[in-house]
């Protein structure tokens, strides 16, 4: 079994079972304690992934570069899969798939005035690393051709690097990332996003 690329699937496999196990387990069970930081990480990463998918939706109408459209399709598929993994993991650990903090950090501005689903274009303030601002998203929507291609790649690289920063922060949080399936999932997210960053750097048009 290898721990990259398909760990989203690994996590799917492990986490999709219905056993409702929450937080601290006796050491004898072998299951590591799940912390509030683990749960918050998964909730925020769902919101983070949603913006990446939103960006890929723009591709087919704004560029003719098939390599970019293909890349976008792959990003969309992998991030959608990973959102499923995260949702099931959260359900299994008795947590909601979103939270007030994730909503706020995803760009709703003040939670008190936000309502409805998280959509990046509603962005005002951005607490999660790498999230594109409302201004960046607007520029991306308006752009076409080479300008769009450059903005998309720069934006998605920024976005992916933010996800890596989120993983790094989780690993540095005391007590976090001990549960086997979560630990493998974050390694997978990291490996996938790194690979995509490297691929995107090679695709940036030279000006």
């Amino acid at each position, binding site marked *: 079994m*290898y721990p990259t690329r398909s760990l989203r699937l690994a996590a799917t496999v492990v986490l999709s079972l219905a056993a409702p196990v929450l937080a601290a387990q006796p050491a004898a069970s072998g299951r590591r304690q799940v912390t509030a930081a683990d749960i918050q990480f998964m909730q925020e990463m769902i919101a983070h992934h949603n913006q990446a998918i939103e960006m890929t939706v723009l591709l087919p109408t704004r560029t003719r570069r098939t390599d970019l459209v*293909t890349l976008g399709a792959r990003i969309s598929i992998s991030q959608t899969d990973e959102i499923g993994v995260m949702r099931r993991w959260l359900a299994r650990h008795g947590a909601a798939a979103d939270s007030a903090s994730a909503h706020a950090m995803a760009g709703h501005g003040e939670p008190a005035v936000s309502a409805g689903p998280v959509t990046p274009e509603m962005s005002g303030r951005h607490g999660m690393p790498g999230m594109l601002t409302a201004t960046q998203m607007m520029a991306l929507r308006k752009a076409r051709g080479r300008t769009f291609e450059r903005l998309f790649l720069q934006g998605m690289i920024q976005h992916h690097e933010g996800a890596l920063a989120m993983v790094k922060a989780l690993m*540095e949080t005391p007590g976090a990332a001990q549960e086997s399936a979560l630990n493998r999932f974050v*390694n997978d997210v990291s490996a996938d996003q790194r690979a995509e960053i490297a691929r995107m750097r090679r695709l940036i048009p030279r000006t």
Partner: protein
Amino acid sequence: MTRSLRRTSSAARACLLLFVASAAVHAQAQSKPSITDPRFSLRGGWNDAQEAISNLTLVAHRNRPDGFFNPADAGDFAFVNSDLAFDGKYAFIGGYHGFQIWDVSTPASPTLRLAFPCPGGQGDLSVYRNLLFMSVEENKGRVDCGAQGVSGAVNAERFMGVRIFDISDIDHPRQVGAVQTCRGSHTHTLLPDPKDPGTVYVYVSGTNDVRNVGDLAGCSDGDPKSDSATARFRIDVIRVPVAAPQDARVVSRPRVFADRRTNAIRGLWRGGTHGAGTQETAETDQCHDITVYPAIGLAAGACSGNGILLDIRDPANPRRVDEVIDPNFAYWHSATFSNDGSKLLFSDEWGGGVGAKCRATDKMTWGANAIFALRNRKLIPQGHYKLPSAQKESENCVAHNGSLIPVPGRDIMVQAWYQGGLSVFDFTNPRKPVEIAYFDRGPINPAELTLAGFWSAYWYNGYIYGSEIGRGLDVLELKPSPMLTQNEIDAAKSVQFAGSNPQLQQQLVWAPSFVVARAYVDQLDRGNGLPAAQITSIMASLGMAEQQSGDARAATLRALATRLDRAAALATDRTRVKALAATVKGLAAAGA
């Protein structure tokens, strides 16, 4: 790199064409997994799943021991059974929660000798003399084997790397060494020093994110272009003085993916697809597993985006001599040499072992084995082998760990396919591998994909041992069939080793015996390598010699050898007749 890639991909295309061409005449050459195979429609269940078995007998099954599974969750990742190693009468099963030692002196009745908790995954094991080696890669791994986990990115209690236990007292393993590495140890491979049996090297394949430099000094995660110390794009080599395992340490970090001309660290496959309709292959920045074959001085690295061939005559400084890609491969996972070193089989772990990749819609060349001819240290693509039966969406299935079965004169292997079960197949003809036997259970959870199935299936001293991720230990025995006779099975059983770490391949040598001779005769009969009348006459001579003793037996055998030498000159399968003749001469010389 470019030159090599072009060469390989055009060769791979040629091989695909061959595959297609042979489909019409060969039943095994199918384009998609079969849904009429009995393995496709088995009833599921954890410990009561329906089984399908062909040309094998399941002689024993043992569930995972108490404390090594979660009764509420068959697929709990924290208790996954992983790889197997063997020493004497013991089978060692690794796992995410620790290791188990099973006494298999009576293979049909394995008894648990010890279940030793030591969490940290994957827990792959090897044994060398009195030392047991264990791979550790999880963030929660502790130096002291404790189950309480490790907090934060920097913590002196964390252990990721290779543990070394002294198992002189099999009931009380003592951790006597522990070598930390920057990406942990996903797998490892032992390589005894050819000049000093008191030293063993460990090739470490680490696949995790690079650790925080505060957690382990020297761990750098920079861009390979500017950071010559990056912990990616290398393997780690540990040198272990067997008498002083506490002194084990990393002695080299070979850049085995470097560009031959420029020495750039990142010199092999950069990740991505190979064109329309091809697989997306991972970047080559790590090895997943390395199989060493000291008898020929080579190792095969299954290294994420490439298969590589290493010269290992200087164990601390392996040198890459060839590399291949395959546009069907997603992730190069493991490798097995044919016994004569003329072929090399690589496995692709498409989907990471946790995906259902044997569905009726999946290509027979994806998530499969790719077989290469090995000539003058160059790899030349031949054919692919995949589990012929389709599996359900609820069954994780892809090529995984296996080993050779020592049938003389043929290349036969047993291999684990996760919930696809285990498959025994012949790749003597590398363009047309064919299945001989199988064993499979229905899905562990028919409702949804739940991790289970065979992690490893290895031959050891006459039996096939399977490490089942969610179900425990299985022991199987081959049954004769038109594709494999009792003589061939008995000849395989005549090869006995003191121990086995399948990633350290040992050369198979068949001591001359009547059963080995008859195995060759059976093969000549099956393949029409000699006229039927000669087959009958040879069998009669062997039968007569076996009844005789002393000089009379030697005389009968020498006469037979002379006849065989003459027959070899005219035979369609000259090599096999010569091998038979050599066996008969050996028998005659033995005087028996």
